């Protein structure tokens, strides 16, 4: 086998790397391109859109069942400025239906077999929403603590939501997600008396991964701690 290109030809000149007659010589072509360049380009385009239109986009990421949709419906009710939502799920429009019932325009993106939203999906969804200046656009990513980490959507900030019914070691187990987040929301705080979750340890682990990560603890269900969250959103504007 040719040791340079692995082509299976035995009759090669090692120095010049030319193959026997009948086989074109291979050549090396430098590429040096980020694998995610296309997504990053689309994300930059989205970011330009948001800046131009005065839209704050927040990318909400979490495991399934952390309470993202409940947090969103309660947040929309508590905010005094316009909110819109892009909902990412493999299938169904159940979450977008819940958001619309809460009074905000929502577009459901079904990723099919896909495990994350990408910047082009968000771009297509944006054209259905056409947010007005001053809008907060919540992008509820697919519930998955692994795959969405690498995909910039053009958001102004990334929020990772962790519920206290999960393990406090999640930041160490899923470091890519916590490394790229600006804020960690610890949700379902009303359950803290009933579960062995140690919030201080969780925060310490998250800061091992990301020393700059901000943390808010709240219960979307009872409303406890929602004020600082709504203030945090307003502060990002």
């Amino acid at each position, binding site marked *: 086998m040719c040791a*340079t*290109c*692995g*082509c299976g030809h035995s009759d090669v000149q090692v120095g010049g790397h030319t193959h026997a007659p009948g*086989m*074109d*010589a*291979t*050549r*090396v*072509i*430098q*590429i*040096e*391109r*980020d*694998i*995610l*360049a*296309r*997504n990053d380009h689309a994300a930059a385009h989205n970011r330009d859109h948001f800046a131009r239109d005065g839209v704050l986009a927040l990318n909400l990421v979490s495991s399934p069942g952390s309470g993202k949709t409940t947090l969103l419906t309660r947040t929309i009710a508590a905010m005094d400025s316009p909110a819109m939502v892009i909902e990412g799920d493999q299938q169904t429009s159940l979450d977008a239906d819940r958001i619309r019932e809460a009074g905000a325009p929502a577009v459901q993106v079904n990723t099919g077999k*896909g*495990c*994350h939203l*990408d910047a082009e999906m968000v771009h297509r969804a944006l054209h259905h929403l056409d947010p007005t200046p001053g809008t907060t656009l919540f992008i509820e990513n697919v519930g998955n603590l*692994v*795959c*969405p*980490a*690498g*995909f910039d959507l053009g958001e102004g900030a990334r929020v990772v939501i962790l519920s206290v019914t999960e393990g406090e070691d999640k*930041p*160490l187990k899923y*470091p*890519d997600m916590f*490394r790229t987040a600006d804020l960690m929301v610890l949700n379902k705080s009303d359950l803290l008396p009933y579960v062995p979750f140690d919030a201080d340890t969780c925060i310490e*682990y998250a*800061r*091992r*991964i990301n*020393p700059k990560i901000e943390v808010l603890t709240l219960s979307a269900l009872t409303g406890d701690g929602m004020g600082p969250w709504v203030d945090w959103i307003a502060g990002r504007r």
Partner: protein
Amino acid sequence: MHEMTLAESVVQIIETTALHENISRVVVVRLALGALSHADPDALRFAFDAAAAGGVAKGARLEISRAEGRAKCHDCSQEVAIDQLGAPCPDCGGYDLDLTGGDALRVVEMEGA
């Protein structure tokens, strides 16, 4: 498995380059996946074979180089090597680290005819 998306992106980059460079068969694709990047090399290899099927990179060998993780430690001001996210500074044990290398996901080059 987001490696499928990454593999499709790699194949797209290869096919665009091959068209531009008048390459009809790609035999090697070289990638740089930093040790601290979010992609798993084995999953990416598996996905690449599927994504490349039927195209110019079908059957191409994937060579993956893995640069070590590097970080600047703000506790001891040293530039250090780290083998995983969340690991302490090997010099002082601190966690206030800023990643400076080892998280690349890049198509470096390809070889073809």
